[in-house]
């Protein structure tokens, strides 16, 4: 009871801080001498109020205070304490409060970290940031207040969806949000710098840290979600082109592009307008993501209980932000004075620019695939869905030049360059084509597309691994990240080409046999746990090379709320993952069984970790450019 009240007033006070801050900002902006100390203390206070609010929600969850509606809807007194706390952001209201917390925290950090930047720029960024914060405050208080009472007070809560009760999913949303919210700083700062005409090399150096930070968090956040989906949903893959996944991929694509453009800006002071546009779209896409996931328009695993009012609010807010940024962009953005800077066709910036366009193409494919069904539904009431074939068909062919460009591009110099060691590059190309032919030769797949795809992936792999292992000099972060990326693409390819799958229905005691393996369904064990019933199948699988392994895939039937989940049994080795799930169909003797062998699965995760390590290294490195 008490903590709800405190939490609610924390929010109101935080909103009040925002209004005061905007007032002081305007005042300080005109006087422009030294930063008004009140601004700093108010920003700090605001963060403190939101934090109090957040902590009181945590307390309500920990104490299972069911007079709080959010707690009642999403918690249960028998839940382990870890999931009581994780449950705070496992629902709509709490996750928005987390957004707000991170937003105020980042604003504070920005203010503290920019002491040597021009005063007007700091104040203006802060003002834009406060506009966003006000929007979120109003949104939380009006449409998704986490501190609503219910009366009479229920004895027991409804519980958290068991598939969300997972350690990875407990940290996945906060990390993803750090990435999303970090992009808000990029947005505000780009707008402020445009307004004041401050887009310069030093601005690029300063904002690059923020770009890197959000990019790292976003990458890790996506990775965690992907790993979770792999072992918890029992779909046996790492990416499903589910709308909710796409929505997190889109800001990532833009952020990656921005990261490379910032480098060009920092080096050569070109592409300024392009950098501004990218900065604006990163945050806009993050907002779109929040809108699509929270509004319940997307029909997906993430949708919480929904309310059309929420969707409408975010949509209006989003339009205001886009409108504001477009106006600022057109009013203040000056054409580059040094417009006659020529791009020499063979240079690092040309390579980056070309791959920029490829990235934008990938972005538009994902965007259209995600949004088109929604539009069609609204306009014509036709219900459609866009599946993986759409994305594969449009993205894979363009991956080939993209990979080759990435391989060559990192070898080029700024401004004007010659291709050095041509012989080496050609040799690498020949080797990769040979390897590709060797791999594809014995497989029953489309020849041409696979050959080109694999050879371009190997090409990048050879070049980056040579850079990575042999040339130990400057810019190691870029090398690690690019090496990680080539490893990622290769692992995905190998994974796709060599995965095998058996889906069959078996009764207890039966055996399934094909040319590769024998599956014996030995027996089932039933167990009654505290909050679920468990059915564990015992299988013995014999591979054609005589290796025998036992699998114990599990099926859990939870009682509060009543949900069935599959717990896959996964055996991971460095070369292959073997993955097994079972499912029971009502009143049937047969069990539905799926057994998959997925080569190089772990390398997909490892390579993404490597990519983020590159980012982290670059973030820690004070001045890595030469």
């Amino acid at each position, binding site marked *: 009871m008490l903590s709800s009240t405190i939490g609610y007033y924390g929010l109101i006070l935080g909103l009040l801080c925002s209004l005061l801050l905007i007032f002081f900002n305007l005042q300080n902006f005109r006087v422009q001498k030294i930063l008004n100390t009140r601004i700093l203390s108010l920003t700090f206070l605001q963060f403190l109020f939101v934090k109090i609010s957040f902590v009181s929600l945590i307390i309500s969850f920990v104490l299972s205070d069911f007079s709080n509606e959010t707690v009642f809807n999403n918690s249960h007194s028998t839940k382990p304490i870890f999931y009581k706390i994780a449950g705070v952001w496992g629902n709509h209201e709490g996750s928005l409060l987390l957004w707000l917390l991170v937003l105020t925290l980042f604003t504070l950090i920005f203010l503290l970290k920019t002491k040597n930047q021009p005063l007007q720029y700091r104040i203006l960024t802060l003002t834009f940031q406060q506009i966003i914060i006000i929007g979120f405050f109003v949104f939380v208080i009006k449409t998704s207040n986490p501190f609503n009472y219910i009366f009479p007070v229920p004895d027991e809560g409804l519980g958290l969806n068991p598939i969300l009760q997972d350690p990875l999913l407990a940290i996945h949303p906060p990390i993803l949000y750090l990435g999303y919210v970090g992009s808000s700083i990029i947005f505000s700062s780009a707008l402020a710098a445009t307004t004041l005409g401050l887009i310069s090399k030093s601005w690029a150096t300063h904002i690059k840290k923020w770009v890197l930070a959000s990019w790292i968090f976003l990458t890790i956040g996506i990775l965690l979600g992907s790993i979770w989906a792999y072992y918890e949903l029992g779909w046996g893959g790492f990416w499903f082109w589910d709308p909710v996944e796409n929505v997190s991929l889109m800001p990532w694509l833009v952020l990656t592009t921005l990261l490379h453009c910032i480098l060009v800006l920092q080096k050569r002071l070109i592409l300024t307008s392009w950098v501004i546009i990218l900065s604006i779209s990163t945050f806009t896409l993050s907002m779109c993501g929040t809108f699509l996931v929270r509004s319940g328009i997307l029909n997906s695993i993430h949708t919480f209980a929904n309310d059309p009012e929420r969707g409408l609010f975010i949509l209006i807010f989003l339009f205001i932000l886009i409108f504001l940024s477009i106006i600022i962009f057109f009013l203040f953005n000056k054409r580059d004075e040094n417009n006659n800077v020529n791009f020499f066709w063979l240079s690092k910036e040309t390579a980056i620019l070309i791959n920029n366009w490829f990235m934008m193409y990938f972005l538009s494919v994902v965007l259209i695939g995600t949004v088109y069904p929604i539009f069609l539904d609204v306009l014509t009431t036709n219900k459609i869905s866009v599946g993986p074939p759409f994305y594969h068909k*449009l993205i894979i062919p363009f991956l080939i030049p993209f990979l080759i460009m990435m391989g060559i591009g990192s070898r080029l110099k700024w401004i004007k360059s010659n291709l050095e060691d041509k012989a080496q590059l050609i040799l690498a190309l020949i080797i990769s084509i040979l390897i590709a032919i060797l791999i594809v030769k014995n497989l029953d797949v489309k020849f041409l597309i696979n050959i080109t795809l694999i050879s371009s992936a190997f090409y990048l792999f050879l070049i980056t691994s040579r850079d990575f292992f042999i040339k130990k000099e400057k810019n190691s972060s870029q090398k690690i990240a690019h090496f990680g990326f080539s490893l990622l693409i290769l692992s995905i390819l190998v994974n796709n080409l060599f995965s095998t799958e058996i889906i069959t*229905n078996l009764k207890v005691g039966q055996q399934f046999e094909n040319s590769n393996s024998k599956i014996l369904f030995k027996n089932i064990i039933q167990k009654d746990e505290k909050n679920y019933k468990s059915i564990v199948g015992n299988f013995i699988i014999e591979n054609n090379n005589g290796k025998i392994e036992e699998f114990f895939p599990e099926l859990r039937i939870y009682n509060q709320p009543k*949900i069935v989940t599959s717990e896959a049994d996964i055996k991971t080795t460095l070369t292959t993952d073997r993955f097994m799930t079972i499912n029971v*169909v*009502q*009143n*049937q003797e047969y069990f539905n069984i799926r057994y998959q062998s997925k080569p190089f699965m772990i390398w997909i995760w490892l390579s993404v970790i490597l990519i983020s390590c590159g980012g982290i290294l670059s973030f820690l490195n004070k001045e890595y450019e030469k």
Partner: protein
Amino acid sequence: MYGRKVKLRLIFILLVLTALILTIFLILKSLEENVVYFQSPSEISELIEIDGKKIRVGGMVKKDSISLTSDQLKFIISDFKNEIIVTYSGVVPNLFEEEKGVVAEGYLKDRNFLSATKILAKHDENYMPPEVKKALEEK
């Protein structure tokens, strides 16, 4: 005539435009080929001709209609007005149950027979795919 610069710029703009048009064309064409339409059993029963395109059918799994053999799952999707028989071999989702909402994706053999390649049901007990809800409301 024109300076070298103007010419270069013109070529550049032309290139960008063609690339843009090509991209849009590619995406739209691919969309058209890969989009899967949703239909209810009643809508299917009114179809005049059956084309070979992939569709999604949604409704309730009819009571006592499920049968599972070693290689095939067979059940009936109903919207309380019309029914369609579905056969399927593959992974059955966790919450596939009688008298619960389901969406089957596959190819129509005739007006009351669907050969499914994928079955979708959701993890939540009370979950009803919006398409199914709508189809049921229209009955």
